[in-house]
């Protein structure tokens, strides 16, 4: 019996030894692997063969802007002013991304000391926290206080359904009956995370953006692409005058910049305050879920 066990053990050992050999079983497979279709740029998508990929935006890619960045410092706080790490703080250019060290006290002090292409400081993970960004300039950057805000819980996310409206945090998207929704399945890995969530940015966060927005919201799942673009309606919390003209801006997080420059704001549409003054209406729609800002044009 002992001998039998021994023989089995030896066989297993030899088998596993062969299995773990560093010699590739079919080395040429690696070369034969070429010829597959090019992958989809960007993080949206799915392995599902029935997956429909929405067309990308045609915003021209911004010119390379490499700058030497020194130290980036700041203080990350939540909507109550309490320190937070916001889940993730990064100093990223279009060419490289650096995870910043943020202490439990919310203090950001990241020595970059390298050249980055069009860098921005991104804060908030887009999962628990609103994802936002501010530009980073050459040299040292003292960004001051960066306020983010907690997104609604995943459980409160509203399911996207073609032909229906979906609402969260005072923001309503109305999907076309033929709408396709492409969620970033790498970041939002299961359906429980893929519902629509929105939150208004508090005044401090609004001021930090330095964009003269009368209102701004963080939407999630970040970089969700919906086609055709859903119409957008927002509660008029800012109490803008009925009939006032509006402009809609989105914040770019995609290095490929299909809709907006990386780490910067891009106007994507116009709208107006409804006649009854209850909502801000953008009938041309919102092509991409990200942070959005609204300017009043009078």
């Amino acid at each position, binding site marked *: 019996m002992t001998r039998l*066990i*021994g023989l*089995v*053990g*030896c066989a*297993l*050992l*030899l*088998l*596993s*030894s062969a*299995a*773990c*050999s*560093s*010699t*590739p079983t079919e*080395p*040429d*497979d*690696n*070369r*034969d*692997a*070429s*010829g*597959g*279709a*090019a*992958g*989809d*740029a*960007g*993080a*949206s*998508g*799915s*392995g599902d063969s029935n997956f429909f990929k929405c067309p990308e935006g045609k915003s021209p890619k911004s010119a390379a802007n490499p700058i030497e960045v020194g130290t980036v410092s700041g203080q990350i706080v939540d909507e109550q002013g309490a320190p937070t790490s916001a*889940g*993730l703080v*990064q100093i*990223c*250019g*279009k*060419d*490289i*991304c*650096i*995870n910043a060290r943020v202490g439990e006290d919310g203090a950001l002090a990241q020595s970059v000391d390298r050249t980055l292409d069009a860098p921005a400081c991104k804060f908030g*993970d887009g*999962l628990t926290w609103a994802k936002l960004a501010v530009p980073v300039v050459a040299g040292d950057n003292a960004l001051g206080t960066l306020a983010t805000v907690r997104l609604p819980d995943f459980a409160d996310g509203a399911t996207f359904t073609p032909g229906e409206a979906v609402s969260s945090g005072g923001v309503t998207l109305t999907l076309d009956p033929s709408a396709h929704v492409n969620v970033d*399945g*790498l*970041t939002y*890995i299961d359906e429980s995370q893929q519902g629509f969530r929105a939150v208004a940015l508090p005044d401090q966060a609004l001021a930090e953006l330095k964009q003269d927005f009368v209102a701004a919201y963080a939407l999630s799942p970040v970089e969700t692409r919906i086609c055709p673009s859903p119409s957008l309606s927002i509660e008029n919390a800012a109490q803008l005058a009925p009939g006032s003209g509006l402009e809609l801006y989105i914040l770019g*997080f*995609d*290095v*490929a910049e299909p809709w907006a420059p*990386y780490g910067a704001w891009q106007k994507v549409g116009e709208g107006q305050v409804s006649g009854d003054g209850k909502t801000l209406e953008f009938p041309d729609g919102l092509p991409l879920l990200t942070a959005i800002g609204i300017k009043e044009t009078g």
Partner: protein
Amino acid sequence: MRLRSGWLLLTALGSSACGTNAPEVPKELLTSSSGCGAPEYPSENFGREVGDVVENKCFTGYRAPDQVPPAEHSRETIAFSDYYDPAGTKGVTLLLINTAAVWCGACVSEHGTLPQHQSELGPQGLVILGTLFENAGRDPATLADLDRWIANFHSNFPMVADPHLYLEDYASADSAPLNMLVDPRSMKILRKYVGDQGTVMWPYIESELARRSAAH
């Protein structure tokens, strides 16, 4: 790592079962820090910079994910040594080791283009070996993360998970991506590119492939 654990279990089982009559297990199989042995692999001059030899490391992933769809049963043990080709018999002319993380926008953008490069340059002997080391929350990449990544980008080259951050030996895991070009004849580092420097890197790769083809 599942396969590594399995190997250790089998080694332990075999060792205890065979007793004094056990076959002599090659030393490198027992002592390799990565869990994979490669007797023929270079054993010296390891280092992290250009001109140094990359130390052999072993991962779990997929050798040809476009041919064998990612699934638990099709996961393989893949080592740098698989692409060590001192005599040119494997057809590997250049090895490009790439790191990526889900949180890294530049990596996401870069992987949108890598399959096209592999398609164009694979026939000339380029092998891209992609390593995914962290997910969106900065947690170590799981094999499920790897499966999603491959499905998203339709990767057509070897892709592995690197939850142990083996590639951090060559560049901080706090910054990504890293592209490291390795000579498969010697496993020496030819170039290191921290960040997506495609405008510099791809012309170099193309010229190096052409030069090696002409020399051959």
